[in-house]
């Protein structure tokens, strides 16, 4: 990593009238890497890539591309292109003219422009749509034109600001795969913005989790998901429960929360070998016939808990509990319903290896 740094941000700070938006961010990106800036709305993602593109000037810090300081270069002098959040296609040009705009600026001959534009249209699967008006395109098509318009310039770095935000879920999935395919095929460095953690995990080589103008953690999707460093990262990326106990803070993802009493088959796999024999029997027991068995966890923690609420979301049943000290814990499992009812008392717990100690940043 260290020896093929392609783009790096060094101590970037930026303030607007509303306050300090970037509070000194550092980031090293390798050639051909797909890196995602992930964070809640307003955390400074767009500002970061606008500074890389040269559309905003940092108050402090440097932007280095291939060893050259490009901080003071205007946007047209940087070999960096952007896919804007609203696509920003030129309404007075047709699709082909939009795509070949960068070539026209560089005075490439008409024949070559046309050939390249055709090639790009094929790449983004819009063959034969070159003479369409921009206003005649669907959201997904506009998005692909914007990608083609940027890629035709063969940028060193492509910046993508929530390019799939406006698309419906199905098209989004499809475009995620296509973007990833194009990125691999072309070997261009992608800096990708999203606030959808699933998208970030699916697509990225590395994820930089951003929070209030700082990177909380930069790492592979695995690292971010399984070994979050801070409570914010654990909560934002893994939807983990944040448990505070004996002056320490732990993150426990909801699928690792095991219900030990009154609800037999819950989280059998998640519980794994740490659960006593009786769980094996419990597996075959139909949900309606609730055995009065009790599970115990060998190496982990157990708590008395009150059932607060059950809800079904995102293909999962979520059960929220309240511990004796008032902390709330969410357990999730596949399935539509549970025999537990609100107000009931039960016991829950998790294995020690599933409780990741994190730095507490108050979330």
């Amino acid at each position, binding site marked *: 990593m260290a020896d093929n740094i392609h783009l790096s941000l060094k101590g970037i700070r930026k303030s607007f009238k509303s306050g300090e938006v970037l509070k000194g961010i550092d980031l090293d990106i390798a050639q051909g890497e797909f890196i995602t800036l992930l964070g809640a709305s307003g955390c400074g993602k767009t500002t970061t890539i606008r500074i890389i593109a040269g559309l905003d000037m940092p108050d402090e810090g440097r932007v280095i591309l291939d060893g050259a300081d490009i901080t003071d270069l205007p*946007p*047209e002098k940087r070999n960096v292109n952007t896919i804007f959040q609203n696509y920003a296609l030129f309404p007075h040009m047709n699709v082909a003219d939009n795509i070949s705009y960068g070539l026209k*600026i560089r005075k490439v001959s008409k024949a070559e422009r046309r050939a390249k534009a055709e090639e790009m249209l094929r790449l983004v699967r819009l063959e034969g749509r070159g003479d369409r008006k921009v206003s005649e395109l669907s959201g997904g098509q506009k998005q692909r034109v914007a990608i083609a318009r940027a890629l035709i310039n063969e940028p060193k770095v492509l910046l993508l600001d929530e390019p799939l935000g406006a698309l419906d879920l199905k098209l989004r999935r499809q475009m995620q795969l296509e973007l990833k395919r194009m990125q691999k095929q072309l070997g261009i460095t992608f800096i990708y913005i999203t606030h959808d953690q699933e998208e970030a995990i699916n697509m990225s080589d590395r994820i930089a989790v951003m929070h209030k103008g700082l990177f909380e953690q930069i790492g592979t999707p695995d690292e971010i998901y399984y070994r979050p460093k801070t409570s914010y990262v654990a909560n934002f990326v893994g939807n983990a429960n944040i448990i505070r106990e004996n002056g320490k803070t732990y993150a426990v993802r909801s699928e690792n929360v095991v219900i030990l009493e009154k609800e037999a088959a819950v989280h059998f796999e998640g519980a794994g070998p740490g659960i006593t024999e009786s769980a094996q029997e419990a597996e075959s027991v139909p949900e309606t016939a609730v055995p009065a068995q009790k599970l115990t966890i060998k190496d982990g923690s157990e708590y008395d808990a009150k059932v607060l609420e059950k809800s079904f979301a995102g293909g999962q049943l979520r059960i929220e509990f309240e511990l004796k000290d008032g902390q709330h814990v969410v357990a999730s499992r596949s399935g539509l319903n549970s025999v537990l009812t609100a107000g009931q008392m039960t016991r829950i717990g998790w294995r020690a290896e599933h409780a990741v100690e994190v730095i507490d940043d108050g979330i």
Partner: protein
Amino acid sequence: MMGSDGRNRNTAGGSLSAGSGSGRAKKNKRKRSSVWILMMPLYAFTIVFVLFPLLYMGFLSFMSRAEVWGFVNEFTLGNYKRILEPLYLNTFKDSLKLAFISTIVNIFIGYPYGYFMARLDEKWKRIMMLLLMIPFWTSGLIRLNGWIIVFRSNGILDKLLMGLHLTDAPLKLLYTYPMVVFGMIYALMPFMILAVYSSAEKMDWTLVEASRDLGAGAAETFFRVTLPLTMPGLLSGVILTFIPSMGLFFVADLLGGNKIVLIGNIIQQQLTKGRNLPFAAALSVVLMVLTSLLIALYRRIAGTRQLEGLI
């Protein structure tokens, strides 16, 4: 008060009965006829005050002149023939030239003004708009008279310049051609500014950023993106300044003395001193045809886009 009350009740009643009626078609029909009724006064107004006078003017232009006032019911092409006399042809030419010059200046000052005004933040936009509107609170005639006080021989400007020893004799600016051009520009500039402003305001600024991002410099971005996208505004600004500057006779009157004669002045003179109604009508018809041709040309260029600021 009574009237508006009554109308409100009527429409409310109308929609009620339509709602309880059977079926969509009936509702639509009812709606369309009520729209038509509402439009009636507008049509009537247009017919009485626009269409009829126009037709009447056309008719007049083919009539003969009466001794004292009015016209004699005798068909003639003489009025139009007379326009072909060098005196009048030259006046048309001069008027077009003046309109052309003042429009060009208006473009070069008004476009940047309107464009940058659209880029200001909301507060400053409001302030600039107000500054632009304040002059309209006073009649144009009074404002032009104000300029006379400034520009006349030994007027405010001369006194100032001579007081500062920048000049040692009056400049004699008043009653010159540049003064009339100045007056036209002064009178019509706000229309150019507002027309450009209205289309620059609507333009998506990220398009400019996108162009820069794709490698175009600031100047190239202006010509490839900003100018094409604000062209409708610029063109309606041209229409709004070019056409009136051929007809604003009082500007030439007040600031040009009787040395500079525009087509508007001739029409006015023929109506008043000359008492030649049919000839004034013929001149007006020609002027109107000229301006209509310009608008047609504009529509050609602007395509199907709306005449921004005009409508």
